């Protein structure tokens, strides 16, 4: 295990960025999101949750697929290049890493999404343990350990020092490339273990960590789908896309054409199942009420997805929707509403 003093981190970042792009939490106008490191970037690695999850690094909010260029009557098509350079995403939390695994299930199974796959292959994830988890966190519910993130490299911040532990070959390779800036610490393992202990103690106290997912699985489809509870739950929903856009696992996208005047750019961009024009077709919309759209989002995360993916939920308990929903709606309230419903029935 290696270590580096927090105040020297810019040396590490500079070193990484010498040979590749480095994504990490950057503060801009008071908000922290993942962005590309530059010398004058306002890096903030103390942040627990960035506003948007780091899924952009692998599945950007919008990306070009190809470009058509029209010259007189001739049309030529130019496909977008797949990612060919390595890059590093630094500081991802355990929940967000799990989020990427959820995306893997979607984009890496047949038919494989080549754009996503290229990014996954070239991306090295440096994870970071959560120092001070918050009341909105509930990752443990999904079996995620915030104290011990699993990625190419795992890091911990302990008393002003960052501890660095490569876990995979990619991680080893990155470590080799940058290890000049590190020091070694023989007592590191012990310190990390103590830190994990400390973090676990905090998570014990968090209100959402003991949420029960009992009854949420593929078998409960009809019962959950037809429940009258949805009618109550959806009402304050504004039909905005905040929850889906901050979510590390939401993977829906739309494909659109942009007329550039001399051709067309085909691009894809995130879409939200909360939007009224989501999956709009010529005949209209499959889900034509907000209740249906609202239900879809949670049924997908908690019922359909696990049913198709060996029980893996497509929620990772990051709590971003809990923090960001304009009307204070969120997945926890949904889960709890059904808990109560079950209780009443029994």
């Amino acid at each position, binding site marked *: 295990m290696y270590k580096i003093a927090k105040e020297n981190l810019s040396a590490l970042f500079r070193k990484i960025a010498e040979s590749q792009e480095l994504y990490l939490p950057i503060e801009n106008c008071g908000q922290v999101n993942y962005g590309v490191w530059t010398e004058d970037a306002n890096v903030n690695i103390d942040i627990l949750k960035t506003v948007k999850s780091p899924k952009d690094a692998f599945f950007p909010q919008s990306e070009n697929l190809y470009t058509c260029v029209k010259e007189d009557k001739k049309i030529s098509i130019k496909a977008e290049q797949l990612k060919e350079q390595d890059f590093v995403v630094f500081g991802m939390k355990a929940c967000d890493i799990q989020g990427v695994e959820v995306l893997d299930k979607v984009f890496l199974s047949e038919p494989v999404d080549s754009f996503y796959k290229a990014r996954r292959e070239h991306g090295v994830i440096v994870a970071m343990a959560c120092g001070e988890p918050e009341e909105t966190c509930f990752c443990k519910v999904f079996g995620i350990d915030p104290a011990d993130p699993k990625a190419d490299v795992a890091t911990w911040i302990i008393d002003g020092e960052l501890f660095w532990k490569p876990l995979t070959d990619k991680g080893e390779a990155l470590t080799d490339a940058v290890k000049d800036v590190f020091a070694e610490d023989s007592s590191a393992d012990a310190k990390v273990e103590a830190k994990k202990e400390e973090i676990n103690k905090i998570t014990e106290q968090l209100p959402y960590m003991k949420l029960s997912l009992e009854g949420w699985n593929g078998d409960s489809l009809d019962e959950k789908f037809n429940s009258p509870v949805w009618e109550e739950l959806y009402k304050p929903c504004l039909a905005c896309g905040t929850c889906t856009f901050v979510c590390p696992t939401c993977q829906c996208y739309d494909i659109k054409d*942009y007329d*550039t*005047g001399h051709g067309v*750019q085909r691009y894809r961009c995130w879409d939200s199942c909360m939007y009224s024009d989501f999956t709009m077709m010529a005949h209209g919309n499959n889900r034509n009420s907000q209740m249906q759209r609202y239900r879809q989002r949670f049924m997908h995360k908690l019922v359909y997805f696990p049913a198709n993916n060996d029980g893996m939920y497509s929620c990772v308990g990051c709590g971003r929707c809990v923090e960001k929903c304009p009307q204070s709606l969120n997945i926890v309230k949904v889960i709890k509403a059904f808990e109560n419903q079950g209780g009443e029935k029994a």
Partner: protein
Amino acid sequence: MSIEANEEFKPKIVAFCCNWCSYAGADLAGSSRLAYPADVKIIRVPCSCRVNPMFILRAFEKGADGVILCGCHPGDCHYSTGNFYARRRMTMLFSMLDYMGVENGRTRVEWVSAAEGVKFSTTMNEFVQKIHSLGKNVRLGDLRCRN
């Protein structure tokens, strides 16, 4: 900066002209052979009040360097009141563009009557000159339209 000094820059300028006054004013400029730069392309609309701020932003998005709106003089609108609404709307739009740091000289409203061929021509000459002095529009365009 004079036009000659900046020869390679050919600005794209969209002029929205109301059918009843300004379009006719432009026709008169034409029949009087009052030249103005070919950079100006006119779009005929029934009235200045038909011009949606979105049209103007769209022009900039797609690469226009200047947009000018011409209508009947206030009080002379063919539809009585159209240009009054246009006047307020454009004042609002321009103030917002200015507020957001987009050079306000790129947009302009001018009232040109059907009899004012000379005014149409001088206005267009002035406007094109202004756009030349401002140079290429880089703050409002969509990069995708550049290449």
